[in-house]
């Protein structure tokens, strides 16, 4: 798929994030928006998946270890055809199959329940090990927040993955630089992130702009060619990307836009979409 097409889809994914979080009056727009492009790349370009057969055994797996950014994942899944886009408005409502954090029993396309930070990555590592044990060819992707890697369990999982040379595993870190209480390097700095993963025997790819499809494409292609060790893609992104007043603002980590803010955000995204259509 051409980058322009991916950009258009990512813009629609962003609209879905804003729409669902606004409808829920709660949720996590900031980290969903920073990861909207990688969600789009994974589900529209990278992964072997089939929305008609979400449980097919040879599918690639994705675990959203930073589970609070479910609105981003749900929006990508909906636009990919796993369920109706209209249903995004049921996010976080009683009886909805779109829970506040991903739940694999309820939602088509979700490979692992997650939300408690640090746990998803271990499950992803278990899936990658499972493929190795039975000589299956599927690949496993997991997305972590840069605040999330403060959890010790992440490094237990990294040690295991590196030791077991799980080259079918791609750990992606969404390095948007912000967590709930502020900048990650003011709260408890996890830097240097790349050197840490290198020390745990990962092949590390730094992506200067994780909201750029050329750079994402190059990174994931390199990850496919990497053999004998797991890959970590550390991608610099902009928290709140695509909605001007949310960009680089920690306060939009876990807050829904009010009606007025919703209108402004949707107008900006509409304009961005129109601009892409004129390219």
């Amino acid at each position: 798929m051409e980058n322009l097409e991916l950009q258009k889809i990512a813009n629609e994914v962003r609209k879905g994030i804003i729409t669902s979080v606004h409808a829920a009056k709660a949720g996590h727009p900031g980290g969903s928006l920073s990861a909207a492009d990688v969600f789009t790349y994974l589900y529209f370009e990278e992964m072997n998946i089939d929305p008609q057969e979400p449980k097919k055994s040879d599918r690639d797996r994705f675990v959203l270890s930073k589970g609070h950014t479910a609105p981003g994942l749900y929006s990508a899944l909906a636009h990919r055809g796993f369920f109706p886009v209209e249903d995004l408005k049921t996010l976080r409502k009683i009886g909805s199959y779109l829970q506040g954090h991903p739940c694999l029993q309820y939602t088509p396309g979700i490979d692992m329940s997650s939300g408690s930070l640090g746990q998803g990555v271990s499950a992803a590592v278990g899936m990658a090990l499972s493929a190795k044990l039975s000589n299956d060819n599927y690949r496993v992707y997991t997305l972590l927040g840069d605040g999330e890697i403060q959890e010790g369990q992440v490094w237990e999982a990294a040690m295991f993955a590196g030791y077991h040379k799980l080259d079918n595993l791609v750990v992606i870190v969404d390095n948007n630089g912000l967590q709930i209480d502020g900048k990650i390097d003011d709260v408890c700095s996890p830097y240097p992130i790349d050197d840490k993963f290198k020390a745990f025997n990962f092949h590390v790819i730094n992506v200067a702009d994780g909201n750029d499809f050329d750079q994402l494409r190059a990174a994931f292609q390199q990850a496919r060619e990497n053999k004998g060790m797991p890959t970590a893609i550390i991608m610099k992104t902009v928290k709140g990307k695509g909605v001007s007043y949310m960009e680089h603002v920690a306060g939009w980590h876990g807050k829904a836009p009010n009606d007025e803010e919703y209108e402004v955000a949707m107008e900006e995204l509409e304009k961005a979409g129109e601009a892409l259509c004129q390219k």
Partner: protein
Amino acid sequence: MPEVKKIATRDSYGNTLVELGKEHDNLVVLDADLAAATKTGVFQKEFPERHINCGIAECNMMGIAAGLAATGKVPFVSSFAMFAAARAFEQVRNSIGYPKMNVKIGATHAGISVGEDGASHQCNEDIALMRTIPGMTVINPSDDIEAKAAVRAAFALDGPVYLRFGRLAVPVINDNPDYKFEIGKGVLLKEGSDVTIIATGLCVEASLQAADLLAADGISAEVINIHTIKPLDKEMVLNSVKKTGKAVTVEEHSIIGGLGSAVCDCLCEHMPAPVYKIGINDVYGESGPALELLKKYGLHGQGIYEKTRDFVRK
């Protein structure tokens, strides 16, 4: 007296995993640097490619197990009860319980019969922790025969199971042709009319001894072995207490949240009756030989006898 055969249930666990491993290719065993102690070393020797040592990292081990189960394997995760149930509680709850993963947790070294290692390693809280997790089956076998049957039944069940095993070699008590293991079904070991003694794990054998001592005092005790604490065999508990009017629960576990609490929950709801809970009385354990500790904490036959006698005569 003939020599009584004694086997630690952790040995039953390891031995049964080897048998099951021969029958099922999808069974894998995980350890956190304790394979020698959890007795899964025999499985490791037989099936090195299906034994995964996660190192000293129990929280990650639970997540690895969840990922393996999500992709069709049946993992048996092994560690001491303290680390499997207590340290990794939230991982068990969120990565295994909530997504209903088909993971079996084999927790050895439960209770004070760990012995010399002392309080830091004597987990008297695991049953309480595990029974609060929705959908978790909790099994605490009383001897080798029951432990082997429990491991097989856990494999056959689709869903998370917590299996509690001990370090101490305990007498074989279920070697009779009528013995049948079924998850969620208690075993009536002795009929009686004055009091129902409901016991679990290694306390079952001690409770049978206590029943004999009570009989000498003219007290007729019914003895029930509850190997499955969740789901509890409510029918058996209610039918027995309906007859005897009172219950004593016996467990190598805190009196808060374990078998005693499960029995009280059941009786409170359906048929209020006096209950005396014998267990670890909201204290930490300590170092010492296992059998001496069991005596000190009143979990031997004499201790159970004395407390039950006083309760019945009260």
